[in-house]
């Protein structure tokens, strides 16, 4: 999987090296692909050594990872279904990052989004499915949006660090979810695993025709492209990037930074909230503690690996979704614990951050001017 992904990039970078003009034009773009790609390969090598310490063959590991993630149509569908919430939760980190904010509370917004969407569906039982589904989307996005808006508002009005507040809000969201699911919203029939009542089979959003991949993937793709357009092709996005680059300059030219922060935080939370809605309406059918499987945390990694670029988030989310999807196979075939996916994600994250030091330092990419 790794070599396949990285080789074409290497080839593209090395082949036209003689042409300095090409490198001057595209050098930065190549760097943005080459450096994270190399960081990924290094991380996979380190993880290979790590499992070798436990007596497993690293080549088996790479093969099963590839096979479990992209080897068959079945694994592709599994991968894409897992990529959908990752795209959405990654946007929750990537959008505020344009303003220079580090939001890591996507998991909390996902949970609140799921809870709001479920509440909407349960309140509207008996209505036409389309009405219920639209209401779930609106409720999920609003719930998640307000949750991250809280972090943004605290930052704007009280100067509370948004990284810490958003993470604390994850634990608070989980407590609220458990409280409601084991309390007023509990389905008396759910004995072992306290859950809300089901939203009803008719209200599930279903799968893309001809596949087992649910519509959440399409939601994710639409929002990723929309975020890209918002950031790079609108005045609003330009203003956000100016404020992210230099907040004092932004204030001097008269941008209302507060409004930018609040709007962006709401949009970011809305994305993660939609991920919660999708998990309810396409996978679980109800809300319970199963929703807190860490999509929000993996989303942070996706956003950083994609260098906070909404379009780059799509392939990166598919890659990380693939790694998640292969976890089951690694457990069954290699006898690795289910946490091995977490270890790999941690190693990738560290390696990608360390690779930040390489930008602008690779000799042959600078051109010969």
């Amino acid at each position, binding site marked *: 999987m790794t070599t396949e992904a990285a080789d074409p990039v290497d080839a593209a970078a090395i082949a036209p090296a003689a042409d300095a003009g090409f490198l001057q034009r595209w050098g930065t773009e190549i760097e943005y692909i080459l450096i994270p790609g190399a960081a990924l390969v290094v991380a996979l090598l380190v993880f290979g050594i790590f499992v070798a310490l436990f007596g497993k063959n690293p080549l088996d590991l790479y093969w099963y990872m590839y096979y479990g993630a992209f080897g068959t149509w079945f694994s592709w569908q599994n991968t894409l279904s897992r990529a959908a919430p990752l795209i959405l939760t990654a946007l929750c980190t990537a959008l505020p990052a344009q303003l220079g904010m580090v939001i890591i509370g996507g998991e909390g917004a996902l949970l609140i989004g799921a809870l709001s969407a479920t509440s909407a569906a349960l309140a509207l039982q008996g209505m036409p499915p389309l009405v219920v589904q639209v209401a779930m989307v609106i409720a999920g996005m609003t719930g998640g949006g307000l949750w991250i808006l809280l972090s943004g508002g605290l930052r704007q009005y*009280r100067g509370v660090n948004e*990284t810490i507040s958003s993470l604390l809000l994850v634990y608070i969201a989980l407590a609220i979810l458990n409280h409601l699911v084991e309390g007023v919203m509990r389905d008396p029939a759910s004995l072992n695993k306290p859950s809300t009542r089901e939203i009803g089979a008719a209200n599930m959003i279903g799968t893309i025709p001809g596949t087992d991949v649910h519509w959440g993937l399409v939601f994710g793709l639409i929002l990723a492209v929309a975020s890209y357009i918002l950031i790079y092709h609108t005045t609003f996005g330009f203003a956000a990037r100016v404020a992210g680059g230099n907040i004092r300059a932004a204030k001097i030219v008269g941008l209302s930074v507060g409004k930018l922060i609040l709007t962006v935080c709401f949009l970011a939370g809305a994305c993660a909230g939609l991920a919660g809605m999708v998990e309810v309406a396409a996978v679980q059918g109800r809300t319970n503690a199963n929703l807190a499987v860490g999509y929000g945390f993996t989303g942070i990694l996706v956003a950083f690996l994609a260098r906070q670029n909404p379009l780059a988030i799509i392939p990166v989310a598919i890659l990380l979704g693939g790694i998640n999807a292969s976890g089951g196979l690694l457990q069954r075939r290699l006898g690795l614990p289910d*946490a091995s996916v977490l270890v790999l994600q*941690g190693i990738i994250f560290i390696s*990608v*951050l360390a690779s930040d030091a390489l930008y602008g330092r690779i000799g042959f990419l600078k051109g010969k001017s």
Partner: protein
Amino acid sequence: MADGNIGLWTVPLAVLGGAIRVSTPFLFVSLGECITERSGRINLGLEGTLVMGAMSAYGISYLSGSPWLGVLAAGLTGALLGALHAGICSLPRVNDVAVGISLMLFGTGLAFFLGKPLIEPTAARLPAIDFGWWSDVPQVRAALRINVLFLLGVALAPILFWAFKTTRWGLLIRTAGESADAARAMGHSVLAIRLRATMAGGFLAGIGGSFLSLFYPGSWNEGLSSGQGITAVALVIFARWDPMLCLWASLAFGGAAALGPALQSVGVTSGYHLFNAAPYILTLLIMIITCSPKRTLSGAPAELSITR
């Protein structure tokens, strides 16, 4: 009274006992983070360090039979993770907040991976000193069964306060945290100072983790720490980077965290999960009250990225 039927007095007693018992990890992590942040760098990865510390302490205690070796192992593991954090942060253009997040995920994942075989076996636990021998009430005795680590932590707070103020090392750390240029001008390597400060912070956070697995709750499982590490990092901010305030704040937090189980023990079960979230809500509220958008916090090390 001697039969232990003390009615609603159970709640304040359990909160007091909790303040002593539950506060220890908060105390160690916040004191460790205090050292790191005073040197001008923030390590958000202490949540991962805490879990790794808990796992390695439990593992070593199980293998060697000595819980104190476990505590030492937890500290060393924490110092290693601290060195990793400091090593990556010393590369140019690398953001310490992001590295902390990555180490939080890495530490937790690695602990779950390596700790898988440790969920079943029982390891030797840390002993407690019985300070409640004078009382006949079992709840009082339970509340006053105090672990040595807690006493060490309580002693450490004034020592650190003194060390920051008067020792050469304290001055160096503070210089690196207030002005890296000044430290450089004095001929010291800022990166080396921060490396040692982050390792010391990791060492203490690891010990905090060992308390979780070896004393209270006293076993290893994947739900052992849920955010104590990050709460302790937030705690340092509103304790104004002052070790003594860290001590009082940790005690308050321990009390808040013990509220849920205490109420449950007298039959109040309805808001169990919400009471369990009390430390996080408390942290958030205190941060809302003490922070201000108009000025940087008093006492904040000037080089700290998170307050700039």
